[in-house]
């Protein structure tokens, strides 16, 4: 029996006031089990990114609570939240993942350095090796391709052995070959290292790498797929949802 690494309960996120009021999340309750790969999908404005930001402690929800690895985020102040992110959470963003003035290796060891730990040199090399970039450790981001930059980000997410890795459209800016490489890496994190991965994407092909797909619309979880996920199945389910949505109007 697996335990839940991340639990969100009754999440509501409201931005703006008056007529410009936007409800990004409208009561989301779900959990992400340890050692699983979850894809969060939905059309633009469905709240998938907000869910990820709130679950990762990058943003605070208006209502509801988030628990990561047994710690309730709403009890933490900004510095405690930062330390939690540093120690327990890994990130891969769509772009601009790396500090441009640091080499790949320095970027990988950055979170540990910020926590005043010096990671054993072997760990950094191993992490870069795991993403197939051991030979590019000394290169700066500008000397790396987009796919390589994302793989460095995956290596960085890996090195602190976090409780969960959040990925926000990690393949959004990549060509399909690079995308596949990055997704295989994320998959390998789960299979080989027992990592927990939560990924936001709008690409059914990317979602097919996950164990479970959450479909969001208008700030609510509207559907969920598990087991034997294929791109075609995901795409079909999305299309179905859209037809339902349109006919209900």
């Amino acid at each position: 029996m697996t335990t839940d690494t991340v639990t969100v309960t009754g999440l509501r996120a409201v931005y703006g006031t008056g007529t410009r009021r936007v409800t990004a999340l409208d009561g989301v309750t779900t959990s992400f089990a340890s050692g699983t790969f979850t894809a969060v999908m939905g059309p633009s404005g469905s709240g998938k990114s907000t869910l990820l930001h709130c679950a990762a402690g990058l943003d605070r929800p208006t209502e509801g609570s988030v628990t990561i690895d047994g710690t309730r985020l709403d009890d933490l102040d900004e510095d405690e939240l930062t330390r939690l992110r540093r120690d327990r959470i890994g990130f891969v963003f769509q772009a601009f993942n790396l500090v441009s003035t640091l080499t790949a290796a320095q970027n990988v060891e950055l979170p540990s350095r910020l926590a005043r730990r010096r990671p054993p040199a072997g760990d950094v090399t191993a992490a870069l090796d795991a993403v197939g970039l051991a030979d590019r450790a000394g290169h700066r981001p500008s000397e790396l391709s987009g796919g390589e930059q994302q793989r460095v980000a995956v290596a960085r997410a890996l090195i602190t052995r976090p409780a969960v890795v959040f990925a926000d459209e990690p393949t959004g800016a990549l060509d399909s070959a690079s995308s596949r490489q990055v997704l295989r890496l994320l998959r390998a994190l789960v299979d080989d290292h027992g990592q927990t991965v939560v990924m936001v994407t709008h690409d059914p092909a990317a979602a097919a790498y996950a164990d479970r797909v959450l479909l969001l619309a208008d700030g609510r979880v509207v559907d969920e797929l598990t087991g034997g996920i294929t791109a075609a199945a995901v795409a079909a389910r999305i299309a179905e949802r859209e037809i339902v949505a349109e006919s209900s109007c």
Partner: protein
Amino acid sequence: MLSVRRSASAFVAVAIGVTLVAAATLLLASGRPQVPDRLARAAVVVQSPEAGASADQFVPTRPWSATAAAGLVGRLSGLPDVVAAVPDRTFYAQPLVDGRPSAADSGREDAHQGHGWSSAQLGGLRLTAGEPPRRAGEVVVDRALGLRVGAPVTVLTAVGPEPYTVTGLVDGPGVHVADEVAAALAPGVRAIGLVLAPGADPERVAMAARGVVGGDGRVLTGAARGVLEPPGDARTRWIGMQVLTATAALAGFVTVFVVSSTFAFTLAQRRRELGLLRAVGATGRQVRRMVGAEALAVGASAGLVGLLLGAALAPVLGRLLVDVGYEPSTFRVRYELWPVAVSLAAGPVIAVLAVWSASRRAARVRPLEALREAAVEQRPIGRLRAATGTLLLATGVALSVGTATADEARVAAQYALYAVMALVAGATVLAPVVVGPLVRLLRSPVRRPGGAIGMLVRGGALTATRRTAAIAAPVLLTVAFAVLVSGMVRTTSAAYAAGRADNVNAGWIVVPDRAPGLSDRAVAATGGTALLPTTVYRTDPATPPKDRPLTALGVEPEGFAAANRVLTVVAGSLDDLTGADTVVVTASANLLPSEPYPVVFADGTSVSLRVVAVVTDTSIPGDLLVPRAVVRAHDPSALTSTVYVRDRIDPPVGARILDVPAWAAEADAAEDRLIWLFTLLLIGVSAGYGAIAVANTLLLAAAGRAADLRLIRMAGATRRQVIWLVTAESALVVLIGALLGGAVAFVGLLSVRAGLAEQVGAPVDLMVPWPVVAGVVGLCLLLAVLSSVLPTWRLLRHRPARSPVGG
């Protein structure tokens, strides 16, 4: 995290700032009083008691009377190891060469000073030819004058031109006469020099001398004898000190200002990177410390470079200061420890101060910012910032009013500087609020038919108001400084000149020409109304400073009353100012006619005067009026400063004649010239620095704009359009800065004018030296356009399509 390219602009800004600070402090430390050559051989000098505090700190000490001096000399010569105790007498004596004062030495104060021959041994002067003066009418002069032994020479004294015979020549400035002649010309003694036996310890002799003198004087040894330098040199040195202090303060301020805007700017550009750091686990404090450490490293290295440059620059500047008249000709640059230490510390301190607010903002960057567009930062300024800005502006306005009402022009210039600093800082803090409305206001000139460029320029300026404000800040600083300082100085001197001309009721005015004053015979030749100023010392038991120096004017009451339009008698009658013991005081003395008024005159004698009249404070250009004959009796070397005459006459030797407006404009001409030079120096420092900062920020901005411009290119803009866009953008920013700076300056100038009008009692015209303003704005515009167009042009040589974006 340090990147060379990113830190370069902050480095340059700090280095230039520290260069200025180092040069200014080195010069400041070098500006110590020099022991006059004339007294170099007197290891111990006893000086007469210091005068009490006064507005003008360059008054001579209260002299001993001839009797008191003789008594002291007798007792001092009796001390062990003292070979001779020589009373040093100084009086006005100017040799005429070819019937005119020598032009070559008119700048040196000691060239027109006379002394008794015995003083020569205090400076180790030896005759190069001839014999010492022994009788009245004999004189020893400087060999440099080109006179021969036995030749006749005319010497100008306070009485008038006197015929003398040259009996000897020496290698030093000034004239020497027989001791008895000197004693008659300068009965009061202000210094007694002690010549010691070889090998004697000056400190031990000084101890013994202190025992003899007691409270009636100060015993000086070593470098402390520097206070005996001519008061004129001390004055020049003081002006130099003010200039250097102001320059150092300004340099420090401008550096902190420019460096902080540079840091704010680089950090704003690194927002996304900072957000990423926050996302992967950097706490706010870690970000702040990182930014601080970067600043410290940049500051320390730039400080070192600045120090070396400043040290190299100091001697050049020193020579310049002497040439211009801010330092006496005896000035030499000395490399002392403290300026070096100050400059070494200045770099890091400036950098850390400058980065302080930016680092606080950097630490507040939310982790999510890594995911957002960096340029869009629309937060209106915070309440704390608004309060700070308002407070600074208020302080600035208060100081501007203080400027206008300060008594002395030079003090006013100092106030002005701090006023501008406060106003500029306030305006910069509040600038982001004003940028939006201002850009909308300026819309029409930027809009062109079908104006995509106008739209882009406006959009850019409006979306990133903070960025726009940050780039405009150095322009604001530069323009505000130039307009406010130059306008303030011009307006003030014009107002004072107008006030002076108003007060005088005479056709023409006779003033000294290449001489410190007019002699009695010259005054008699003009037949006008003369002012014969002398310094008297008053010890009032009621008001503390002992021996308070006062300016007493020797006048003929009738003529003086006729020539002075503002004379208002409060009590008594000016006609009673005839007896040897009569005095007219001003209302602030708080006395009534017939009350006693004891003073010490320049000959050291104490006289109890009797008040015969009281006039208002603004009635007379001094503190007291006494009969002219009284001044002459007590101060044989007093010189007339001004003579009012009704009709134009031929001026006597050593004098010139001016009409009233010319005199009023010229009265402080020498001082005004120094102040104007000072002003230009300050404007030069701030404008030069501001211009560099403008270029600096725009170069940075251009680098940050690369991605945007590429996008605009891809959207179909031609190269020319992009260049035009960039030009228009930088011109808009300069315009915003210039307008804000001008507005700040205008507020300041208006308060100055209000204060002045009240003080002068007449409406005052605002004077703004437009060429200076135009030059400063033009310089900013030129540099701004160049520094944004050049990098853009380089960028555009590549094709717009695929090239790696940033990092």
